[in-house]
Every structure is written in structure tokens, then in C-alpha cells.
């Protein structure tokens, strides 16, 4: 059978097939990893102290970065809408679009990306270093499940912390827009706030929370998956860290689009 095909054609198919198989194999490994983490998350032993420590690390210590991102973005958004809107006499829509854009889109996405940069990289670097220095093997020989001890607390903390941080970021972002509108663009504070409240819908907040939880899951999964698969010393740790951040970024932006499309359908 193979004799009837010239070797070069077979080689071309092989060259095409290999990366395709590779991608599917990777998706399978990540899915297996995620399912394992979910199953171990609901069976003892539990490590509440580790979970609390990760909540501090992922949530509390990310707040300065998240807060700064939100206030700058909210203010810039208000200015852009004002400038863009004034071209067709629609500058009064500033509060409405700030609240809409911040809560539904910019808050979750920017918090997701900032936390992914800060936390997915740290998770991958820490677990990766533990892998290459045999600390993960040591953990197993000391009869401690790395999933329950290291990975579940990180992933659970990311899923819980992200929605809270997004709500905080949304508030700060709206406040940033408000401050710029009042002090620079000359809006009336009372009517700006009234419009903001009118356009702040429960559905939008739910969408922000759901997006944030999904992004948190992606951050935890990509950080832990890439970290625990690290091979090849210091260079391997560097690669795992880069892979964790890049894959988390892409998956966050992709899932943001999917959630947005599904919700608006």
C-alpha cells in the first residue's frame, strides 16, 4: 500500500499530521489535568490554610495593580467617549458607556490579563522550580498529593478571587470615569451618578462575575498545568512561565468573546 505513494507525499502528510495530533494531545492533557483537579478538589484531604494563603497571594496582593489598571482605564474611557461622542453631539452618553464598557468588558478582561501576568507566571515558575528540583517527587514520596496540596488551592483561590477583584475594579473604573468627567469635562456630578445608576444592570454585573470566574479558572489551570509539566532546568522554568502567561492571555480573550456572544445571542 505504502509503495504506491511517493515518499515525499507521505512525508508531507506526516508533516501536516504531526502538529495536528500534537494539538489534540495537548488539549487532551489539559482536559485530563482540569478534571483531575476538579475531582481532587471535592475529596479529602483539604488544605484550608493553603487555600487562604493563595487567596492572599492572588487576590489581596494583586489589588494595587488591579486598582491602578481600573482607574486609568476608566478615566481614559470617559475621555475617549467624550471626544468621540462630541463629533455627533452624543457626549452626554459618557456615563452610560463608561458603565457599560467597564462592567461588561474592560473590567473583567483587564483584570484577567493583569492577574494572569502576575499570578499565572508565578504559579508556573514556582511549580516548575519544584518540578525540576524534585520537590514534586519528594511530595509524592512523603505521601502528599500535589494536586490537593498545591494545585487545588491555587485554582480554587483564582476562581474565587477574580470575581471579587473584578467587582472592585469595576467600581474603581467607574469612579475614574466619574472623576475625569466631573473635574475635566465639566459634567454635573448628580446627573452623572443618576445616569450611571440607571445604566448599571444586574445582568451586566452577572456577566462580569461569570467572566471573572472563568478567567480565574483559566489562570489557575494554565499556571499549574504548565508549571507541573516543566522539564529541563532553569530554561524549562522560563519556558513554562512564558507558556503559562501567553496561553492564559489567549484563552482569556477567546473565552471573553465566546461568553459575550453567547450572552448577547
Amino acid at each position, binding site marked *: 500500500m505504502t509503495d504506491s505513494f511517493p515518499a515525499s507525499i507521505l512525508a508531507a502528510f506526516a508533516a501536516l499530521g504531526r502538529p495536528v495530533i500534537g494539538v489534540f494531545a495537548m488539549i487532551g492533557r489539559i482536559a485530563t489535568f482540569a478534571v483531575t483537579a476538579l475531582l481532587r478538589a471535592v475529596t479529602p484531604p483539604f488544605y484550608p490554610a493553603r487555600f487562604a494563603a493563595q487567596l492572599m497571594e492572588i487576590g489581596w496582593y494583586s489589588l494595587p495593580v488591579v486598582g491602578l489598571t481600573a482607574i486609568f482605564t476608566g478615566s481614559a474611557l470617559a475621555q475617549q467617549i467624550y471626544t468621540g461622542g462630541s463629533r455627533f453631539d452624543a457626549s452626554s452618553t459618557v456615563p452610560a458607556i463608561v458603565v457599560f464598557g467597564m462592567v461588561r468588558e474592560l473590567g473583567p478582561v483587564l483584570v484577567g490579563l493583569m492577574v494572569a501576568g502576575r499570578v499565572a507566571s508565578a504559579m508556573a515558575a514556582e511549580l516548575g522550580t519544584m518540578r525540576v528540583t524534585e520537590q514534586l517527587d519528594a511530595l509524592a514520596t*512523603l505521601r502528599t498529593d500535589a494536586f490537593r496540596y498545591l494545585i487545588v488551592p491555587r485554582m480554587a483561590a483564582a476562581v474565587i478571587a477574580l470575581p471579587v477583584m473584578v467587582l472592585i475594579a469595576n467600581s474603581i473604573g467607574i469612579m475614574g470615569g466619574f472623576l475625569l468627567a466631573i473635574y475635566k469635562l465639566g459634567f454635573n456630578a448628580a446627573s452623572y451618578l443618576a445616569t450611571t445608576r440607571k445604566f448599571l444592570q444586574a445582568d451586566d454585573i452577572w456577566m462580569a462575575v461569570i467572566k471573572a470566574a472563568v478567567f480565574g479558572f483559566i489562570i489557575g489551570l494554565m499556571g499549574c498545568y504548565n508549571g507541573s509539566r516543566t522539564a529541563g532546568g532553569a530554561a524549562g522554568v522560563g519556558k513554562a512561565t512564558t507558556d503559562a502567561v501567553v496561553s492564559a492571555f489567549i484563552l482569556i480573550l477567546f473565552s471573553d468573546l465566546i461568553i459575550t456572544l453567547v450572552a448577547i445571542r
Partner: protein
Amino acid sequence: MAEIVRGAPKIKLTEVVKRFGDNSVLDGVNLSVEPGESVAIIGGSGTGKSVTLKCILGLLRPDSGSITVDGTEVVGVGSREMSRIRTKFGMLFQGGALFDSMPVWRNVTFGLTQGRMTDAAQMRRIAEENLERVGLKRDILNLRPNELSGGMQKRVALARAIAPRPEIIFFDEPTTGLDPIRADMINDLITSLVEDLGVTALTITHDMVSARKIANRVAMLYNGRIIWHGPRDRLYDSGNPYVDQFVQGRADGPIR
């Protein structure tokens, strides 16, 4: 190579094969270790010594073959069963593999607490006892592993391995990276632990001085197979050209 069977072996490997991709690291390893015996596996870098230990511990899964511990098959068992079997084992990793995020005393007692925050006062006392056994004092209890010298890290790692009172201890290159005097201290410690605690020891090393000091029996791993094993006194007149070349450290010979 014929097996030496004397009663029930503590550990028995039969035709163990482990491949990574196309690279066959273990190619039919046969080895048995008797209770209370101290066996050293010698062999060059990359000959699969660490892989052998990791297969026994269930950290790697062999592609074929059988590994029994006290007569119980360990290849392919579930994670809970493996965890139960691992209560028999302690392992000293090559680089120590101490958890750098926690102080010495939590490291030493990790095999007892599994990372839970149980009774700190009692755990510190247990840590102190085990540190004393490896010749370290209580003043390092609160230090982090990175604040210790390489030799001290190794001894803390040894204290961690013996704290749960295992029946079998694996030593992965116990003297690598230490100066000759510190290496000899580790050798003495291992010898005394094996004798005092009555444990079965399996050491992988390419340090001939160490192998001769701590092992009753030596096996040589080459090309994924045990090509020779015998009592340590026979190491230098094994009659095997591969072993001769290795123990004498010659560049020319059958091993290239």
C-alpha cells in the same frame, strides 16, 4: 544473570522496561534486594539509575515488567494503594529536594503531617530528634533550606526521609556535590542508619568509595540492564570488563 533468591525479597524487579519516546532507558532490569540488605547500583550518568528508583516508588510507570515490594505488585496500582505502599519508603533526593517555602522543622516532619498544621510543639520536638540523629542541632529548626550549606541541606533531607520511620530508604547520589570529608560523614550516617534502624537501603551512585562503604552488595547498570552484581568485596575483581573500566575510571574500554 541468575537471581539470588533467599526467602522473600524486600524489593524485586523483573524484566522492567521503561522507554521515553524511542529511547529505551531500562531494557529489562532484574534485581532483588533482601530485607536489611544495603545494595548500591552503580553506573554512568544517564544509564537509568534514577529512573529505576522512580519506577519502584511509582513516580514513573514502567512500560512492562514487574516490581514487587514485600511480595506485593506495585506496577499499575491506584494512587491510594500506592500512597499506602509508600509508607514503607523514605527517599533522599540528589539535591535534597527540600521544600524551600517552609522552615527546616516543617520539612523534617512533612512525612508525618502531609502538610497539615498539626500540633506544632510536638512536631518541632520530633524534628529535633531526627535532626539530632543526623548530627544537626536545634538552632536550625526555624531556618529556611536556602540558608543552609549544601552538606547541611543533605542532612536535613536525610532527617526528613527517616522521620516517618520507613522500612526502606533510597539514596540518590548521596555524596554528589560534597567535599570528600562531608561525603564520608554522609556515608557514615547512612551506614549507621541502616544498622541502627534495621532498614533496607538502595543507593544509586557513581562514587566508588561511597558504594564500597555503604553497600553489602553492588549491581552495575549499563545500557538499561544489570550487567553484573556481586558482594562489594568483588567490585575490584569482578572479572567483568565493563565493571573494571567503571570502577577504575578509565576512558578507554568497552564503555564509550
